[in-house]
């Protein structure tokens, strides 16, 4: 936890230098938010029954997805584990990471978590605020939902981090993961409920999505925020997220231990 705050402080320091860049990033996501808002307004006017929820709730879902994407897009942060590992493997500096007294997975989580929290406060929050003020975004139904959304968002981040970490480990085998990263980003975009809400997919596709972890990244927190789940359902949603996060973190850890052993053999 101490390391986490240390990484967070370093991130925090950079804000003074790049204030203009931050303003622009918020502006970019406002343009994208305007885009999805227009899209869903037109589709709602065409057939409200298919959208299946009130327009204000739908545009809130879509715009919040865009805002969260600032930090949840797989390679949005330069500290994302797959970006970091790829860079270190390519330049051969990965050995310095192994020398540190902290496990690689924890190191990267602290680094990436700091950047994500920082991005959440300085990028997502302003975008959300402007969305609420000018774009007709709704607030969560009550305080419980709001708090549950924050918890769910943190769990989303953990799941995303773990998937990214596993992707980064592939780099040790292939040295270049750019193409795999593109495929992965595409899959995540389609299956996470970010671009298309899952209830619009055909039945067989929904069944597939339900057994995959991707929907926990966007759909779960967004459904909680918009009040689309009952208060009893919140518990179940969060539990599912915790389960996926645990499974993926352990899987990543196991894979890393395997890779590490192989690396030592190579070095010895």
């Amino acid at each position, binding site marked *: 936890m101490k390391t986490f705050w240390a990484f967070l402080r370093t991130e925090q320091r950079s804000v003074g230098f790049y204030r*203009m860049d931050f303003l622009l990033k918020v*502006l970019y996501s406002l343009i*994208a938010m*305007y885009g999805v808002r*227009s899209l869903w307004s037109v589709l709602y006017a065409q057939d409200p029954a298919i959208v299946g929820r009130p327009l204000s709730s739908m545009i809130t879902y879509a715009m919040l997805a865009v805002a969260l994407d600032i930090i949840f897009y797989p390679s949005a942060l330069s500290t994302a584990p797959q970006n970091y590992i790829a860079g270190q493997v390519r330049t051969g500096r990965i050995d310095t990471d192994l020398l540190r007294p902290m496990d690689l997975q924890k190191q990267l989580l602290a680094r990436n978590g700091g950047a994500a929290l920082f991005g959440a406060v300085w990028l997502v929050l302003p975008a959300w605020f402007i969305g609420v003020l000018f774009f007709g975004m709704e607030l969560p139904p009550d305080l419980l939902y709001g708090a549950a959304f924050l918890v769910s968002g943190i769990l989303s981040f953990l799941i995303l981090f773990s998937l990214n970490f596993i992707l980064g480990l592939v780099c040790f085998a292939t040295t270049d993961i750019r*193409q795999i990263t593109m495929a992965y980003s595409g899959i995540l975009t*389609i299956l996470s409920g970010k671009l298309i809400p899952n209830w619009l997919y055909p039945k067989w596709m929904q069944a597939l999505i339900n057994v995959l972890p991707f929907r926990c990244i966007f759909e779960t927190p967004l459904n909680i925020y918009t009040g689309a789940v009952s208060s009893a359902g919140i518990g179940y949603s969060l539990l599912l997220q915790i389960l996926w996060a645990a499974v993926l973190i352990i899987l990543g850890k196991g894979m890393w231990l395997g890779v590490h052993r192989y690396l030592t053999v190579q070095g010895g």
Partner: protein
Amino acid sequence: MRELKFHIKMYGSLLKMTMKGILQYRTDFWISLVSVVLLNGANIVQLSVISWRFKALGNWQVGDLLVLYGLFMISWSIFSVFFRKLSKIEEEIVNGSFDVYLLRPVSPFLQLVGGDINYTGLCDTIMGIALVMTGLVMTGIQWDWKKICWFIIFVLSGGTIVVCLRFLISCVTFWMTKAGALSSLFTQIYLLTQKYPVTIFGRGFRFLVTGLVTVAYLNFYPAVYLLDKPDAPYWLCRIAPLIAMGWVVIAAVVWHIGLQRYNSSGG
């Protein structure tokens, strides 16, 4: 006239040299093709699901949307195949390699453009053509020779518009060092016009992409004309070549002013 011939010959030999250089990396092409399909795949899936559930987006059916998306890719690929180097002016100015062009007796523009042909950009062309053809089959519209001529005119105009816009954004480097922000802003705007017909947006945005940034001329207006859509008057679509020419004039003027400015600051 003799000067023009010289320039064309120079461009040819510059291209030949670059081609020889990159032909060594043939697998790059296949990898790029896969990435282009994957990168655009998510958008295509989104458009397909939306038009499957809602029957259409506004009055645009799935076939129309594929043509809209494909046209954008084809026009854009003209830039990414032949002129991608233009977006690297910033880099070249910063690391000083731009000065080399000014010392040689060939126009700096030609040297910049001739120094690079990015044949992986052809993947965009291939996917774009595939999307347009699929879209046309789905809509059942058949193009007569007149439409085919207009298709070529639209693609060339669209390509010219992208090249000029990207070029102008890079030229901003002559005045201020950070053109990257402007370029990302441009990206955000065209991402919306690439995917969706601009009629779903408000009046302000439509004006922005028609009259100011004109990215709607890459795909929306061509598609309206080529697919007989009622979304815009046809004369507004057919002025695409005029708009492209307008941008060429502006780009040429800015380039010359920029070069002069660069000289003075370098001296």
